[in-house]
C-alpha cells in the first residue's frame, strides 16, 4: 500500500477501513540467509538496505520485545553531521544525506526537519576548536557556518548573552541538522523491509549463538533455534549482555542517558541548541514539547532510568542559557541504555567468530547514525568488506592505537 495525501483523503471518506497492518507478524522460519539480532532502528535499517540495495530478502530481524523498543524509541531525535575526525565525519555525512531522501525513499513521513543545529561557544579556544570542526565538516561535503555573536543573536535572540556565567560568544551552526520523529524511523524502516519480504519477528529473544569451531551458524531463541549463514548483532544498549553469550568481551560499557520533555508549548525555539559550557541541548518537537538532555549519569547501568543530580544539572544548563524556560514544566523523564565505547566511536565489524558480525558502541549518538549504520552494516554483510565511510570502525582498533576520540578524553567511557 502506498501512502499519500490522496490515500488519507480517500480513507477518511470511506471510514478508514482500508488501512492495512504496517508490518506482518510472521512465524520464524528454521533458517535464513541473514539473521539480524535487534529490531531497533539500526537493525531495521540494516534489513531495509540489505533488501533495497543488495536484493537480499531471506532475512529475519529478531526483536526481544516490541519493534523499536530500544534507543530508537527513547532519544532526543537529533540528526547532525558535525563531527571532526576523518574516521567519523564522512560516515555521519552519508547518514545525513540518507536522512534527506529517506521519506520519499521508504514512503513514510518521519518528519525529517532540518531546522539547524547550533553549538554555542564561550571562548576563543572553543571557537578555534569549532573552526577546526567546521572546516573538517565542509571538507567532508557537509555544511557549517561559524556564527559570531551578532549572527547568533539574529537566530536566537532569547539566549542570555550578557548575564550568562559563561558569556555566549557565538556558535557553530549546521543548517542541515535538525530532528526526526524517532518512532516513525523504526516504523518506516520496518514497513519498507517488510514490504520487501523481510521477516520481522517481535517477542523473540536470542538466548545463545550456535558456535562451533569458530563458526557461527545461527541463534537459539525463545521461539526456537534459527539457523543462518550470517548472524548480525545490532543491539546497542545490550551489546555487553548479548555478546557475552558468544564469549566476547567488548571495549564497551553500558551507561544510562536521561532525556526530558516539557509540556507542550507554542513555538519557542527554532532548531537544536547545544550549550558547550554546561550539559544541555534542546529542541522543540512538532507537538510543542521542549525535548532536552545533557550528560550521561556516569555509572555503569542497564536500568533504563537515572537519578536526580543529572536532572538538576541539565536544567541548570538550560536556565543558564535561556532563563525564559523557567516556567515551562518538565513533563516526563526517561533513560536509555547507551553502549559507551572506549573512544566514543562505534563499531561495524566482523568478529573473530566466522559468520558473526557486530554493530554497536554508538554512545549517545546512535539515532542520527541510523540510516548510515544500516547502510554500512548491510554493505559489510552483503560484500564482506566495510563500506568506504566506515573502514575505521574496527573492533580491534585499540590494539594498534587507532582510536577515533573526538573528545580527547581517552579510554574512559563515561567521559565521552
Amino acid at each position, binding site marked *: 500500500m502506498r501512502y499519500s*495525501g490522496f490515500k*488519507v*483523503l480517500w480513507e*477518511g471518506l470511506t471510514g*478508514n477501513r482500508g488501512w492495512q*497492518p504496517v508490518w506482518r*507478524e510472521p512465524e520464524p522460519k528454521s533458517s535464513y540467509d541473514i539473521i539480524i539480532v535487534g529490531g531497533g532502528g539500526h537493525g531495521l535499517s540494516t534489513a531495509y538496505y540489505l533488501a533495497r540495495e543488495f536484493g537480499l530478502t531471506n532475512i529475519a530481524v529478531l526483536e526481544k*520485545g*516490541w519493534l523499536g523498543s530500544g534507543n530508537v524509541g527513547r532519544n532526543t531525535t537529533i540528526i547532525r553531521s558535525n563531527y571532526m575526525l576523518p574516521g567519523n565525519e564522512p560516515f555521519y555525512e552519508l547518514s545525513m544525506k540518507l536522512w534527506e531522501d529517506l*521519506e*520519499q525513499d521508504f514512503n*513514510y*513521513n*518521519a*518528519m525529517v*526537519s532540518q531546522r539547524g543545529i547550533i553549538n554555542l561557544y*564561550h571562548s576563543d*579556544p572553543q571557537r*578555534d*576548536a569549532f*573552526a*577546526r570542526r*567546521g*572546516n573538517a565538516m*565542509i*571538507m567532508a561535503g557537509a555544511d557549517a557556518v561559524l556564527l559570531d555573536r551578532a549572527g547568533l543573536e539574529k537566530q536566537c535572540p532569547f539566549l542570555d548573552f550578557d548575564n*550568562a*556565567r559563561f558569556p555566549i560568544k557565538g556558535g557553530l551552526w549546521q543548517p542541515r541538522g535538525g530532528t526526526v520523529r524517532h518512532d516513525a524511523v523504526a516504523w*518506516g524502516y520496518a514497513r519498507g523491509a517488510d514490504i520487501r519480504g523481510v521477516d520481522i519477528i517481535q517477542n523473540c529473544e536470542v538466548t545463545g549463538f550456535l558456535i562451533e569451531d569458530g563458526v557461527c551458524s545461527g541463534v537459539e531463541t525463545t521461539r526456537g533455534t534459527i539457523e543462518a549463514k550470517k548472524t548480525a548483532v545490532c543491539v546497542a544498549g545490550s551489546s555487553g549482555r548479548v555478546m557475552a553469550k558468544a564469549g566476547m568481551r567488548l571495549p564497551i560499557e553500558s551507561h544510562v542517558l536521561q532525556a526530558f520533555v*516539557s*509540556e*507542550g*508549548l507554542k513555538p*519557542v525555539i527554532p532548531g537544536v541548541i547545544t550549550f558547550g559550557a554546561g550539559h544541555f541541548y534542546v529542541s522543540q518537537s512538532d*507537538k*510543542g514539547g521542549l525535548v532536552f538532555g545533557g550528560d550521561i549519569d556516569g555509572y555503569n547501568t542497564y*536500568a533504563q*532510568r537515572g*537519578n*536526580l543530580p543529572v536532572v538538576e544539572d541539565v*536544567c*541548570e544548563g*538550560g*536556565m*543558564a542559557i535561556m*532563563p*525564559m*524556560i*523557567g*516556567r*515551562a*514544566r*518538565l513533563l*516526563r*523523564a*526517561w533513560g536509555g541504555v547507551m553502549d559507551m565505547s572506549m573512544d566514543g566511536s562505534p563499531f561495524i565489524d566482523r568478529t573473530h567468530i566466522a559468520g558473526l558480525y557486530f554493530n554497536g558502541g554508538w554512545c549517545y549518538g546512535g539515532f542520527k547514525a541510523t540510516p548510515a549504520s544500516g547502510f554500512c552494516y548491510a554493505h559489510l554483510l552483503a560484500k564482506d568488506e566495510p563500506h568506504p565511510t566506515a573502514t575505521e570502525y574496527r573492533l580491534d582498533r585499540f*590494539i594498534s592505537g587507532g582510536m577515533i576520540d573526538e*573528545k580527547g578524553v*581517552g*579510554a574512559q567511557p563515561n567521559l565521552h
Partner: protein
Amino acid sequence: MSQSNRTQGGHIDRSKTLRFTFNGSRLEGHPGDTLASALIANGVRLVGRSFKYHRPRGIFSAGSEEPNALVELRRDAHREPNTRATVTELFDGLAANSQNHRGPLRYDLLAVNDYLSPFLTAGFYYKTFMWPKAFWEKLYEPIIRASAGLGRLSMQEDPDAYDKGFLHCDLLIIGAGPAGLSAALTAARSGARVILADEDFRLGGRLNAETLEISGDSGADWAQATVAELSSMDNVRLMPRTTVYGAYDHGIYGAIERKTDHLADGGGKPRQVLWRIYSRRAILCAGATERSIAFGNNDRPGIMLAGSVRAYANRWAALPGRRVAVFTNNDDGWRTASDLAAQGAEIAAIVDTRERASLAAPAGAAVSMGTSVVDTKGRHGLKGVALSNGSTVECDCLAVSGGWSPNVHLTCHQRGRPVWRDDIAGFAPGPDLPDGMRVAGAANGSLTLAAALREGHEQASAAAGELGFSTVAKTPPAAEDEAVEASAFFHVKNDGPRAWIDLQNDVTAKDVKLAHQEGFRSVEHLKRYTTLGMATDQGKTANLLGLSVMAECTGRTIPETGTTIFRPPYTPVPIGAFAGRARGKEFRPTRLTTSHKWAEERGAVFVEAGQWLRAQWFPQSGETRWRESVDREAAAVRGSVGICDVTTLGKIDIQGRDAAEFLNKVYANGFAKLAVGKVRYGLMLREDGIVMDDGTTARLGENHFVMTTTTANAVSVFRHMEFCRQCLWPGLDVHLISATEQWAQFAVAGPRSRDLLRKAVDPEFDISSEAFPFMGCGEVSVFGGTPARLFRISFSGELAYEIAVPARYGDAMIRALMEVGEEFGVVPYGTEALSVLRIEKGHPVAAELCGQTTARDLGLGRMVSKKKDCIGNTLSERSNLNREDGLSLVGFAPVMRNDQLSAGAHFVSRGKPASTENDEGWMTSVAYSPELGHSIGLGFIAGGHERMGEIIQAADPLRGRTIEVRIVSPHFVDPEGERQRA
C-alpha cells in the same frame, strides 16, 4: 458577578472575598477555593479547547489529574502556561486566560479541525505531507507547529527565584489523606523522624471532599485534629503544597514545595523549593484517581468525574450543575448522587451499567440499571444525554464514575510493574517496589476509608519497627467500610459518535481501533502511534480506557494486553525549580585570583578559564584595539620585564619517603634523580599513551615536591594521582594535598626580572644566576620576612621567575612588585600576551594537549622513558601512534607576510582540493608576533619535521580564507634557549 452556583458549607472562608479574572471577566471567590472551584461557583463551564480537534472543554476533575482545564496563569513575564485550574489556589488579583485557541474561546477558528476529523486520525501525518520534499520545513511543518503546542511562554526571563534543599527522615509519608494521616500518627508517636507531604494546600485528602465519618466525627474534622497533633510534634515535618514527584535510588525522593504560588506577590522569596528527601523508609499513601467511561461525545463541558463533582459540592460548596445525571459502573458513583442531592442539586438520573446496586438513590432520581449513556448534546456545555435504552435525559452536568485507579506512579519509578486486580478492575502496586517503600490505602487498591486508616497504621508500624522504633500498639481510628463494589466496564461500544479516551490529546476509541488495525498492538506502540497518555496529564484518567479498547480488539484481557509504567515526575515540575539558584552569574562558582581586585582597578579585561577569571590584557589609555595592548605587553616582557598572575595553575604538594619514586611512575620522564632545589618539566601520559598534562615539579626537600598542573586539569590530575597512590601503588609512602589555593603566584619575566626581584627578595637570599640558576628553586622571604617560594622557570623563553607568597599577601604582593618594578618599566601582562609569548617559543597548551596527541606528536617523544614502569609508556608504543607519517607539532608562517593565520584551518598540500582525503592536519594556535612582525601559528601536520620549508595551504573554507603558509620550526624566538639561562 454573584457566585451563582455556590451553596452552603464547605471548607472555604466566606469572611473574605477574593477577586480574580478569567479571560478578562471579573469574578469572585473565597480563600480555600481553587481556580476551578471558583469558576464552577461562578457558573463558568467552558474553560478551554482540546489539543487536536479544538473541541470545547470544561473542568473535568478536581485534582492534579486534570486533562482539560489548563490556563495561562498570571501576566507578562510571570505568565505560566498549561497551569491546571484544579490545583491553582485562588488568590486576590489572580488573572487566568484560556489557551490554545485562535480567536475568542467560544468561537475558536481552529474548531474547523473537528469537521476534518475523519482525515486527522491517529498517525495520519506519517502517511502524507511528503511531497514535494521541500515543502515540509517551509509549509507543512510551520502550520503544524503553530497550531500544535498548548500555552505560550512569555519569552522573558523567569522573574522568580527558586531554591533547593535536602531533608532527612526515618519515614517519608507521601499523601496526607486518611491512610497518610493514620500512618503519620502511628510513626510520629513511635518517635521516628517523619515527613508528611501532600500536594494539596489543605491536608486530609479525600476526607475534605467526603461526608464519611471517623470515630463519630466528620472525616474533615478528624483530619484537622490529626494535623494539629502532628504539627505539635518536634519529630514531624508537615509539608502541604508539596508534591513528591519521583522515587529515586536508595530511598531518595524528589519533592517540589510551592512556597509563594498561592500569593499575589511572593515578596522576592523563592517561589518553589525543590527538595531532595533522604528517607530510610517511605509509605506511599497517594490515594486513587477516578477514571471515566468512554462513550459517544463524552468530552463536553459539564461531563465530569463523579468523585470530583462530589468534591466541588462538599469541599467547595460549588455545584457543577443544577440538574445532574450520574453515569457509573460502581457503588461510588451513587454517593455523588446522594451528596449532590444533599447540597440542593436535582438528580435527574442515575445510570448504572450493572444490573443491581447496593446503595439507595436520592428521592426523585430516575434509576436505570443495566444501562449506558451513548451520546450527549450541547456544543459549549452539556444539555442532555441519550441512554442505551433509547431514552434521553435533560441535564447540565453528567457525573461519570468508571471506578478508581490506585495512584501507583511512584511504585513504578524504578521500573516496578503494577499488577491487575479484578476486584477493583484496575492495576495495583506490584511486588517490585522501590527499596524501602510500602503502600497503604487507596494507592494500594484498598478503597474503603476503614481500610485506608487500618493500612496506614499497619504499614507505619511495620516500617517503624524495622528501624527499631517501637510503636504503641493502638488500633487505628474506626470508620465504616463503605460500599465500593466495582465492575469492569470501560467503554460503551457503538459505531456512532466518537468516544474520547484521552481528552487532552484527542485520542478516541476509533483511534485505538485504527492502531490495532494497522498493527500497533503492543501498549508502547499504541501510546506512540496514537499519543495516548502523552499529554500533560500523562494519561492519569485515560490509560486504562485505552488498554480496555485494545483488549477488546485483540480479544485478550487487559493484563494480557499490558500496562504502561510511569516515569517521573508524578506531575510536571518547572524547569526553573530543577535549576534552583544555579542561573545567571550564579550558574557556577567564580574563582578569583588574589590580584583580581588590583587588576580591576587597572581596568583589566577578564576572561573565563574554567571557573577562574583571569586578566586577559590591561588596556592603557589611548589603546583602542586589544591587539595594541597585547603587543605592548608582549614586547615589554621581551624588552624589560612583565608580571603575570599564574595562580590558577594547579599546585599539588607531594610528600613522603617514596615521593620521588611515585613521581617517576606518574610522569613519563625521569624524576627519581632530580636534585633538591631543582625544578624539572614533567610530561604526564594517560595509560593509553596520549599526553594528559604537563607542568613543572620542584623538589623542595628530599621527601617533598611541589607539582604544577595546567589550570584546566588541576582536578583531574589530582584525582588520577590519588588513583595511582591508593589503587596501583598503595605500598608507597606518599601523600598528596592541593596547594593551589594556598599560594598567590606571579610570573616575573623579561631581561630585567632578576633586577626587579632583587628589590623584592630579602637580601639574605642570593638570586644571582650562579647561586640560583635556570630551573632552580628555593624557599625565600620577600619584603622583610614574608615567606615565599621562588622558581626560576620560564614560559616566555626570557629570563624569568615565578614567585609565590601565601595567598593572604597576594594583593599586597602584586602592588609591591609593581611598585619596585617601576624603575624597570614593569608592565602587567594578561593571558593574551602570555599566549603570544608561548607560541613564539612553541610551548604547547590545551589546544595542543587536546587529548588526541602523543608525546611524539608534540616532539617530546624522547622524554618517554622506556627504562622504567610509568603510566602510559607501554601503550604509547602501539604502531598507529608511531607512524612515520604521524602528526608533528611544527610552526607555520604566512607566505604573504601580511596574511593572518587562523586557528582551526586544515592543512592541504598545494594544488589539492580541500577535502577529507587530502586533510593533513590542522592549525592549533595562532598569534601576531610583535617580535617578528607577522602572524605565526602552531599546528599538527603529517610528517611535519621532515617538511621544514614546504609551502602548503591552510584551508579555512568555514571563514572563506585559504592562504599559503610555510612549515617552520615551532621555536620562533631564541630557538637555542639562551635568554632564559641568562
